[in-house]
């Protein structure tokens, strides 16, 4: 009996220890928004969000507009990629906007947003975005939420370090991610990197009245990779800070070969000094081919001009423009705090965050505290520029934003969290997990002199199990945290479109009152506009047929067109005669190899159509405009090339020869 009990006991011990053992395994992290979270992100139906959230679309090449704190998506603004739903990049008017020195480029990769500022504060005028692939900067007008200008950047191999702006939007910068050979010596061996490859930084001036962009000057810098940048502000206004990587100057397997040095650089640029050199005539004009595309609000048309010259400065010869500051391990984010005193470098492979002091940098320059030179540029001693280091903040720091209370918020890709720390004391105050592997983060007004604070949004790179799965391809995930208290609180998890990188948020009251409702018909200067149904017509110019078409609820004029022949190019210039808010009309025709065009009230847009067979082709309004939207349709008759069918057009006219149908 005793042995039985003994044996049973032994078995029991084994069993329980096995159970205890299993339960010792760590659990996957739980992630539930707690307490009053839902009410904090809730915007009641019919009410407005507090902030416009302007979000880069990454590989969709567009910008998207969300509301905060609701996370609702309001609009995708086509910028660098064709957008068939509105005809952007397909209509005759918008095609020039995507013109480059390489011809028409239908796609790009938009990474970063910069909202225009005056005195370092948001002014709600423009949003700038960068094209990472075929280097360009775009300007979106915040009144119409339309891309109104795109400027290409010569001598750049990829515009990643862009479009960061100075305090009064004097300049938008564009630093190249890839150094490339330039000028006459472009057909060189890749292995001649050190000798022939250069990194160029463009300073694009922005006209304070109309926002027009122009490359003011380019700085010729050593062949490294420029990653991100921020302008100085307040006391550091006049300076710009760029993070660099690949100071190893590797040209293959950068994953390993560009990660060897303990420190890369933050490049400090004294752009006021550069301006002095320009004024003194020290710039050299250099041949360069690049496109400058400008949208005209009155002709509703983009015009592309190919430019052929750019002004350059060589900081290796012209002293005091640039200085390097060592920064640990391939810095990514390079962010200046609201006072302009502190510059935070986030070495994405580093185990600490260095914070540099602008005052100390100035002292180090004055006292020549240099540790040497890199390609002819002085390198400031690390300790001489350092305010201090945030110790053990997390793994894989990427970007830092600021609130108005002296706190910084840094995103950590590897440890997938946001860490809040004090800029002065460098003390870590709080950390929250993000889902999963955050890239950029955004505090409303975070990069300005007066952050609006209140929220921080995490834009994550990995979505996995956050939402209902949709096959291998998933939406991107974002989380919204309330930062008004001492502790960050998760209040919303929302999907985002494209692949957001950087984003900015601006109070609704700075943008909403200026939002345009319609384009005025009397200001429409489109050469093919029909400003009333009486002006609707069809004209033949050789093998081009131009249809001056009007759209108003609920008919298109003309809606019967005959006399088009095979071999003709037919241009439908559709003018929306409506002058009422939110009554767009669309236009599409069977077999068109372009897209639809979506025409806003008072606007004219042109769809080009080349019929490939004879017959009668239907067209219709694609935007549900009215109760009789479904009746808003018509026909084009296409006859053989040599046919003698006369060109004619009408709306509401019943022909005698017809069989009586429609009478």
């Amino acid at each position: 009996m005793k042995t039985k009990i003994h044996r049973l006991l032994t078995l029991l011990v084994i069993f329980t220890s096995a159970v205890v053992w299993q339960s010792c395994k760590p659990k996957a992290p739980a992630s539930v928004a707690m307490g009053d979270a839902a009410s904090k992100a809730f915007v009641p139906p019919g009410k407005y969000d507090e902030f416009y959230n302007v979000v880069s679309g990454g590989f969709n090449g567009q910008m998207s507009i969300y509301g905060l704190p609701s996370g609702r998506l309001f609009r995708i603004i086509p910028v660098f990629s064709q957008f068939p739903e509105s005809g952007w990049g397909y209509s005759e008017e918008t095609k020039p906007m995507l013109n480059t020195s390489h011809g028409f480029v239908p796609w790009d990769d938009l990474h970063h947003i910069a909202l225009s500022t005056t005195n370092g504060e948001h002014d709600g005028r423009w949003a700038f975005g960068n094209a990472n692939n075929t280097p360009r900067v775009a300007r979106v007008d915040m009144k119409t939420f339309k891309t109104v200008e795109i400027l290409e950047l010569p001598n750049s191999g990829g515009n990643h370090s862009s479009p960061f702006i100075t305090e009064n939007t004097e300049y938008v910068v564009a630093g190249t991610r890839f150094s490339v050979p330039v000028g006459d010596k472009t057909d060189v061996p890749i292995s001649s990197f050190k000798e022939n490859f250069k990194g160029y930084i463009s300073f694009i001036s922005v006209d304070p009245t109309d926002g027009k962009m122009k490359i003011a000057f380019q700085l010729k810098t050593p062949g490294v990779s420029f990653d991100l940048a921020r302008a100085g502000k307040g006391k550091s206004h006049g300076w710009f800070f760029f993070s660099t990587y690949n100071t190893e100057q590797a040209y293959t397997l950068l994953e390993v070969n560009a990660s060897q040095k303990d420190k890369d650089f933050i490049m400090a640029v004294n752009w006021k000094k550069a301006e002095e050199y320009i004024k003194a005539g020290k710039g050299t004009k250099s041949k360069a081919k690049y496109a400058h595309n400008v949208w005209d609000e009155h002709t509703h048309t983009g015009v592309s001009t190919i430019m052929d010259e750019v002004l350059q400065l060589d900081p290796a010869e012209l002293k005091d423009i640039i200085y390097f500051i060592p920064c640990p391990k391939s810095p990514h984010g390079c962010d200046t705090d609201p006072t302009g005193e502190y510059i935070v470098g986030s070495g994405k492979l580093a185990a600490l965050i260095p914070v540099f002091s602008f005052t100390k940098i100035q002292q180090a320059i004055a006292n020549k505290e240099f540790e040497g030179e890199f390609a002819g540029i002085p390198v400031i001693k690390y300790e001489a520029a350092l305010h201090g280091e945030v110790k053990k903040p997390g793994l894989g720091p990427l970007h830092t934003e600021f609130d108005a209370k002296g706190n910084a918020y840094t995103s950590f890709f590897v440890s997938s969290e946001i860490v809040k720390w004090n800029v002065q004391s460098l003390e870590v105050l709080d950390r929250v997990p993000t889902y999963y592997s955050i890239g950029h983060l955004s505090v409303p007004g975070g990069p300005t002199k007066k952050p609006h604070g209140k929220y921080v949004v995490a834009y994550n790179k990995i979505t996995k199990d956050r939402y209902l799965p949709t096959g291998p391809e998933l939406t991107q995930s974002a989380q919204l945290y309330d930062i008004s208290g001492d502790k960050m609180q998760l209040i919303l998890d929302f999907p985002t479109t494209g692949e957001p990188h950087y984003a900015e948020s601006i109070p609704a009251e700075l943008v909403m009152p200026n939002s345009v409702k319609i384009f005025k018909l009397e200001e429409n200067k489109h050469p093919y506009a029909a400003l009333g149904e009486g002006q609707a017509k069809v004209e033949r110019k050789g093998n081009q047929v131009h249809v001056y078409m009007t759209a108003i609820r609920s008919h298109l004029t003309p809606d019967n067109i005959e006399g088009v022949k095979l071999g003709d190019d037919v241009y439908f210039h559709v003018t929306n005669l409506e002058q009422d808010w939110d009554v767009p009309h669309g236009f599409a025709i069977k077999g068109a190899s372009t897209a639809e065009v979506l025409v806003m009230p008072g606007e004219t847009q042109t769809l080009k159509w080349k019929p490939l067979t004879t017959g009668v082709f239907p067209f219709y309004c694609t935007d549900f405009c009215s109760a009789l939207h479904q009746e808003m349709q018509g026909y084009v008759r296409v006859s053989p090339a040599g046919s003698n069918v006369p060109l004619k057009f009408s709306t509401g006219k019943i022909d005698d020869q017809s069989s009586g149908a429609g009478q």
Partner: protein
Amino acid sequence: MKTLKPLSRLVVAIAALLMVSAYFVPLWQILMWAPQYPEGLEMDIWINTITGDVKVISALNHYIGMKHIEVEMFPEFGYMIYIVGFLIGFGLLTALINRRFMLWMFSLLLVATAVAALVDFWLWGYDYGHNLDPTAAINIPGMSYQPPLIGTKQLLNFTAFSGPDIGGWIFIIAGVLIMGTLGFELYTQKKKV
């Protein structure tokens, strides 16, 4: 010559036969979680191979300079089948020969094998966690990444767990049965005297 009780012989035979499972189920498991791997990553060590998310784990670990895990890295997989075969054979022989010294030998053999296996695993873990590629992208001074021998350990953003898998548990049960039998034999003999 001391013999064994019939029940002891039966238990020893059953324990030896239980070890046959080692050829069909994984023996050891290494589990890993990270914030971006809430579903966890798993590595199962069998008698002659490694299965599970080995490629994913190797791809992640290359950033810190750890070696790519390959079955060929482990000579153990070449001879473990024979060691376990020998243990099973020895166990069955113990039951067959019916001598207590054989049970003693078998128990010592099992303990020695278990200790040797853990030492071997620890040595591999030490090398895997310390012998890092100096050109690795992420190089944190003073940081090494030796996986835990048994239990849980935090390694950068990963929480790693190491412990027996089903085959390992069966082995442990077999070991406990053998030890228990030896204890039972010694205990009942003492009682008689």
